[in-house]
């Protein structure tokens, strides 16, 4: 996935002279995960800029550039580091179009690694998508494969509005896939159906796709057919595809690594309860991270939902 992200940057830097890449250690060092390796060498220091260790400034700089006709792609080194940038993101980036009645726009992409599973210290493994989704004017996107990382990142850069782009850190080097480096973007604001099924709809995103697909495969051998939807754009949610799937299966399980309380799973469940209640054969189940601080390395796999938990939740919906 990391190479797909690097190639999407390369493509867009080469084809759109207004694209500027910035962040901590992204130039000379090529990024902590190597997402931007080689870009400064190829495109120079004006277009690929190292910044001081100051997230608020990175977001603020990106906003300023965007209002003046550039398309900044900024990196926050880890999602837990986003807090100092939130003032700029929430108070300016998300609302600039609205505040100026459309006179100024903010086509910024802010990328960051998302989630745990890489044995990192504190503040490096958070899943804070719900906090961002709560802000009007922002899109939140999270790819789950190299191909979607490539296509959705291109779409995000080309979109005229600000986008938070969450890259599942443990997928960076986990999943290998051939990606056509053809500059083709994938659509935003839609779910991707990764597996057709008839018994239960399972909605998930990011790194949880891996565990969910594993669970779905095992369940298939036991005669349970799961339809797996990759949410991909976490805000706004493609409720139509989810409701259509639930109409078919009558059961819904939502899986996310982020904490349960006020998570995006709750938004999906509420919408299905509002518009699809009579299609449901069983209560909706959520399999999520716990409402605790993301633990350190030795407990992170006790925090992140595993296939066993997902399978039990699916089976519970089938009992009804």
């Amino acid at each position, binding site marked *: 996935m990391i190479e797909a992200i690097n190639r999407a940057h390369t493509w867009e830097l080469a084809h759109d002279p207004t694209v500027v890449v910035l962040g901590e250690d992204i130039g000379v060092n090529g990024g902590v995960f190597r997402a931007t390796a080689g870009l400064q060498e190829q495109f120079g220091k004006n277009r690929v800029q190292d910044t001081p260790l100051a997230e608020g400034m990175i977001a603020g700089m990106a906003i300023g550039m965007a209002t003046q006709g550039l398309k900044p792609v900024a990196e926050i080194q880890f999602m837990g580091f986003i807090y100092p940038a939130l003032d700029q993101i929430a108070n300016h980036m998300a609302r600039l179009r609205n505040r100026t009645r459309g006179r100024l726009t903010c086509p910024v992409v802010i990328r960051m690694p998302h989630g745990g599973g890489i044995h990192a210290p504190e503040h490096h493994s958070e899943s804070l998508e719900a906090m961002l989704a709560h802000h009007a004017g922002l899109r939140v996107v999270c790819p789950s494969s190299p191909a979607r990382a490539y296509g959705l990142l291109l779409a995000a850069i080309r979109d005229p509005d600000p986008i938070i782009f969450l890259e599942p850190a443990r997928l960076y080097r986990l999943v290998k896939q051939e990606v056509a480096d053809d500059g083709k973007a994938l659509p935003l604001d839609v779910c991707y159906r990764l597996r057709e099924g008839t018994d239960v709809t399972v909605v998930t995103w990011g790194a949880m796709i891996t565990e969910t697909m594993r669970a779905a495969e095992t369940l298939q051998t036991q005669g349970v057919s799961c339809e797996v939807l990759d949410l991909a754009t976490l805000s706004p949610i493609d409720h139509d595809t989810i409701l259509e799937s639930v109409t078919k299966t009558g059961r819904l399980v939502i899986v996310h690594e982020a904490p349960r309380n006020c998570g995006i799973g709750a938004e999906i469940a509420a919408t299905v309860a509002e518009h699809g209640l009579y299609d449901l054969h069983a209560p909706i189940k959520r399999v999520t991270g716990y409402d*605790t601080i993301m633990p350190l*390395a030795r407990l992170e796999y006790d925090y992140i939902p595993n296939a066993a938990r997902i399978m039990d939740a699916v089976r519970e919906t089938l009992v009804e």
Partner: protein
Amino acid sequence: MRADRDQSEVREAWEKEPLLRLRAHLVRLKAWDEAREESLKAECAREVEAAVDQYLSGPKPSTDAMFDHLFANPPKGLLEQREIARRYASGR
């Protein structure tokens, strides 16, 4: 070459850099020197390494550790989640 500020401004800022000034001040007072600084750095590195080793080589913490010390009075829902975490402990 940066366009946003003059290089002389950067040089001047380095001269006023507070940590460097504090070190120079302590050296003048003969309260600090290169050897002591190296020794402090080595000691800090040892302390951090030892803490990491201890964490990684000791017994694995129980899943309850995630829920401990979060609240003085943990809410009911959190205690229910603690039960779920115990049930699904990964063992890895």
